[in-house]
């Protein structure tokens, strides 16, 4: 009787244990749901985003991705709010603002120890300048971009002007812009640069606005190369071959460059970006791509950028998030996005070679531009340039752009910028670092 009782108890206990194990097993197999915030627009169509996710989920049945697709203009406010709140941040998100980077998970070990992906597959310049922060890999690069000069071949043919070449100079730019200018057609030859010490300034030898150790402005902002670059700007403005800041304010396109003016044939040359190539292509305009002009002997620079997708440092599912991130930013996801969204340019050179228009002259011109040294290589270690100094020396730029000073006043104007520039630098370095 007693032994029968014990047998029954043991059987029940076994059953209970089995039940527990099976429940535990079932729980282990429950799919993990990742939250993922991304944006959609002309550059990343919503169906392509969903197709990447479907392809990932098919490969990883235990991971589901709950994607929120939002407009470009909406993303910053949402992400800033969530990060400021300290909760409600998704497992995966774009970390395109530097202010968000401390919230991103350090991916260095995962990337270096994962056999499925390597940093070598990515474009070196874009990888090093955009996803490495404080010696940590804090994201993976996504869509890459760069500024280059697009020229409207129909406008050039119309005015009988030869196309610019890969090794053209800043002086060539002014001469061509003047030759393309046509008052009757309300046409300008080319646009104006958007700020000092970007690629064009560096191509003219004006490399840095202050010393590399972030201590001195004197001799940099007002050094001979800088004066030459600002004088070049003065000559360009004086030529009348470019739209005024007011023209660009009215006719430009929301900070993305005057692509609509360019497409309409009212601007012979414009410093634009990869998205503009697609817009221009779709509008049926015959165009070419060259790098920003350079004074011979100087290094070739480009103002480039990459979007970066990262994992929130407080994510409850960092392993699963990493699986998705390397799929999305790696060749499988990037190929789908590139094939289904013409405006998507992956940071993976081997994939860039597969682009639909890879054989065209303009696309080859674009690829050439990507090989130049990026302005970000200096900027990312010198946050005070954008954080403070640029505001301190903005007057010199504005005075020239508005035609308020004479050519021989450029040196004196830049000399006058040394004091506010130095003050801005001194105030900023303790705050943001050198």
């Amino acid at each position, binding site marked *: 009787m007693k032994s029968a009782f014990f047998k029954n108890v043991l059987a029940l206990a076994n059953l209970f244990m089995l039940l527990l194990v099976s429940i535990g097993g079932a729980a282990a197999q429950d799919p993990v749901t990742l939250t993922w915030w991304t*944006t*959609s*627009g*002309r*550059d990343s169509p*919503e169906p392509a985003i969903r197709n990447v996710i479907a392809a990932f989920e098919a490969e990883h049945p235990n991971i589901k991705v709950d994607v*929120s*697709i*939002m*407009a*470009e*203009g*909406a993303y910053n*406010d*949402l992400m800033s*709010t*969530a990060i*400021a*709140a300290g*909760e*409600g941040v998704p497992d995966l998100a774009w970390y395109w603002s530097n202010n968000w980077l401390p919230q991103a998970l350090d991916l260095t070990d995962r990337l270096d120890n994962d056999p499925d992906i390597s940093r070598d597959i990515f474009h070196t310049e874009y990888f090093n300048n955009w996803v490495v922060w404080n010696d940590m890999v804090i994201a993976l690069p996504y*869509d890459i*971009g760069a500024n280059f000069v697009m020229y409207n071949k129909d406008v050039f043919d119309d005015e009988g002007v030869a196309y610019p070449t890969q090794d053209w100079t800043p002086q060539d730019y002014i001469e061509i812009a003047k030759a393309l200018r046509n008052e009757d*057609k*309300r*046409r300008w030859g080319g646009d104006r640069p958007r700020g000092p010490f970007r690629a064009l300034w560096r191509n003219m030898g004006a490399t840095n606005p202050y010393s590399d150790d972030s201590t001195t402005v004197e001799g940099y902002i007002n050094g001979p190369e800088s004066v030459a670059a600002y004088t070049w700007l003065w000559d360009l403005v004086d030529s009348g071959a470019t739209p005024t800041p007011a023209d660009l304010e009215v*006719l430009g*396109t*929301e900070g*993305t*460059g005057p*692509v*609509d*003016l360019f*497409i*309409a*044939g*009212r601007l012979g040359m414009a410093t634009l*970006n*990869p*998205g*503009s190539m*697609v*817009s221009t292509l*779709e*509008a*049926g*305009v015959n165009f070419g791509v060259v790098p920003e002009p350079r004074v011979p002997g100087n290094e070739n620079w480009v103002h480039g950028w990459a979007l970066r997708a990262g994992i929130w440092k407080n994510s409850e599912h960092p392993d699963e998030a990493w699986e998705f991130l390397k799929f999305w930013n790696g060749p499988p996801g990037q190929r789908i996005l590139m094939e289904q969204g013409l*405006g998507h340019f992956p940071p993976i050179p081997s994939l860039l070679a597969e682009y639909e228009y890879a054989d065209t002259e303009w696309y080859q011109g674009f690829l050439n531009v990507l090989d130049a040294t990026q302005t970000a290589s200096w900027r990312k270690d010198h946050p005070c340039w954008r954080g403070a100094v640029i505001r301190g020396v903005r007057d010199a730029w504005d005075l020239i752009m508005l035609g308020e000073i004479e050519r021989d006043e450029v040196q004196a104007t830049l000399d006058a910028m040394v004091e506010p520039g130095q003050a801005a630098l001194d105030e900023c370095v303790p705050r943001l670092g050198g």
Partner: protein
Amino acid sequence: MRIDPARLNASEQLRRSTRQRRAKMLVWHAIIYAVMISLACVFMLPIFWMASTSLKLPRELMAWPPEWIPSNPQWGNYAEAFGKYPLARYMLNSAILVIANIVGALLSAPVIAYGFARFNFPFKNVLFILMLSMMMVPGHIKLIPLYVLYLRLDLIDTYWPLILPAYFGSPFFIFLMTQFMRTIPRELDDAARIDGAGPWSILYRIIIPLCRPALTVVVVFTFLWTWNDFLEPIIFLRDYDSFPISVGLAFFQGRYSIEWHLFMGATLVSIIPILVVYFFAQRHLIGGLAAIGIKG
């Protein structure tokens, strides 16, 4: 019977002066109408340009000379815009939010205002000033606390964060209704009370029917604000299909460019409900605002 020539002359003069006055009035009216029509045309220019842009090809957008009426109108732009993003769904979502907010505003603002306008209770003035002070707090400041609040209530990605506040009264509408109610003679309340009416009965049978101009302002403003609200939907909504039209339009702005021709077409369609509401409500709206301004 003999008519006095002097009187005849006076009557003729009167007729002539009336004719002259009428002619002057006619000219004056013609001038006023001409000015008003010209002004209306100036104000309509952006809408017209929007319509014109919505029918162009991308390369025609900035062409010189500009074409006010496109020679080859691209009606397909509208179909493309509505096919590219679920704009019809977004407009329906906006309509749902508008109706829910209007109901909330109409339920809450008059009741709260009635309390401030007709009753005395401890700390009434302090509470009224506190309520008014909320009008001066910029909405952005409240975003992070609200985000955390709704997150913890598990209401993110639902319409509740966009609807619930309306049911607790907007300070602006409470202030507006309070001022309006204060202009309604208390004798009406007394008369109703003698007839046996209680506070609720007085509110719904006496006060609210007399508040029609102010209530019209509440309805129209709630409509406009909810239809155009962009910031709160982007913070509280996640689902691609749940966005209102204000957010849906933002999809036309890509990372590098704006599809102006599609954007203008979609925007033009999206403002039609606003124009219709304003057209029908303008008389009440202007009358309501004027009444509040004069009496309040």
